[in-house]
């Protein structure tokens, strides 16, 4: 689906620009987009270096194991195929807690670290495992207690009550997360029946592309 979406955006963009007789928009947009991509990656370096260092300390002090144990039942439900006490669970928990507190800067490195651990358990290194898909689903919906950026912007424009959207946002984000988890579960079951998961994970994949 990512292939289809990618070519769709490029093709429709090409056609739209051509139809307006402004095909040069495409060229400009390509270099703009490429620049943004590199810029974002470079912007990540500082955050990533710092938080991965921090997380290594937490790992060495066995803090992550504790965190994973503390919240074991939730992760156990969400990630049934990750072995108990696997380091991935600690990173997943710290990623989820960081998201909850709205610490986007810290959440990304922890999420990536969790992905790296899940990748170690993954038999096919190019195809996402069910656990990876679940972690991604949780992060795209990303439950947030306080949308700090939005409150700051509303304050800037002299809102009478900048925080009045906290309640509506919380409900909307919980609904979106629930939808993500349910959809993820549905696909997971459909794509790989538990009995066959280990023997033929590829067959149902090819069918849906």
């Amino acid at each position, binding site marked *: 689906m990512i292939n289809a979406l*990618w070519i769709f*955006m490029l093709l429709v*963009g090409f056609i*739209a*620009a051509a139809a*307006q007789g402004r095909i040069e*928009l495409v060229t400009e*947009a*390509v270099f703009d*987009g490429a620049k943004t*991509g590199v810029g*974002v990656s*470079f912007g*990540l370096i500082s955050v990533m270096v*710092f938080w*991965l*260092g*921090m*997380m*290594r*300390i937490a790992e*060495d*002090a066995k*803090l992550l194991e504790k965190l994973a144990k503390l919240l074991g039942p939730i992760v156990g439900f969400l990630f049934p195929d990750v072995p108990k006490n696997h380091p991935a669970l600690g990173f997943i928990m710290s990623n989820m807690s960081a998201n909850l*507190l*709205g*610490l986007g*800067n*810290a959440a990304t490195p922890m*999420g990536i670290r969790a*992905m*790296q651990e899940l990748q170690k358990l993954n038999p096919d290194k190019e*195809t*996402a495992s069910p656990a*990876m898909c679940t972690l991604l689903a949780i*992060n*795209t*919906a*990303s439950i947030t207690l306080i*949308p700090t*950026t*939005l409150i700051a*912007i*509303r304050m800037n424009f002299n809102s009478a*009550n900048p*925080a*009045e*959207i906290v*309640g*509506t*946002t919380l409900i*909307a*984000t919980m*609904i*979106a997360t629930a*939808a*993500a988890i349910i*959809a993820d579960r549905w*696909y997971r079951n459909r794509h790989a029946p538990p009995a066959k998961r280990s023997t033929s994970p590829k067959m149902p*994949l090819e069918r849906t592309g």
Partner: protein
Amino acid sequence: MYSIISAISTWAIPAIIVFIPLYAFFRKVPVYESFVEGAKDGFQTSINIIPTLVGMMVAISVFRASGAMDWILGFFKPYLEWMGVPSEVFPLAFLRPITGAGSLAFTTDLIKSYGPDSMIGRIASTIQGSTDTTLYVLTVYFGAVGIRKGRYALKVGLFSDLIGFIAAVMICLFVFS
């Protein structure tokens, strides 16, 4: 309630940054060496993301700058209006999943034009705050570990964005009117 949670958010990072090394220090972990050892991976991981991120950003940029997004929006407009969604927030339904910075800019603009306490301002704020940028998260998380086939992950992410968008609009119309 808000002030409590907001205080937690502000204090969380400084507190974590002090707590982790302190705890580790008392458990006889060579904290500084551990930090440097872990930090080494940060650079390579960020660099690994460049190809996927450039690929995705280029497509998104072409899609938006060419006016293609507005085209497609026009196609959906009658249906969304029929559902009672203010037409000003439509673009967010498309922008939110594909670009975080783009949708934030758009939301800011709506808040500026219609006021933060207008229905449009409230709906836009709620949409912006309630989900993360699906394409970005997918690109970065999978890109960092070299996953090329995301299976159903994109569908799940976009589905939850759609549900989140509808929920945000409905809840705001219900709560604020």
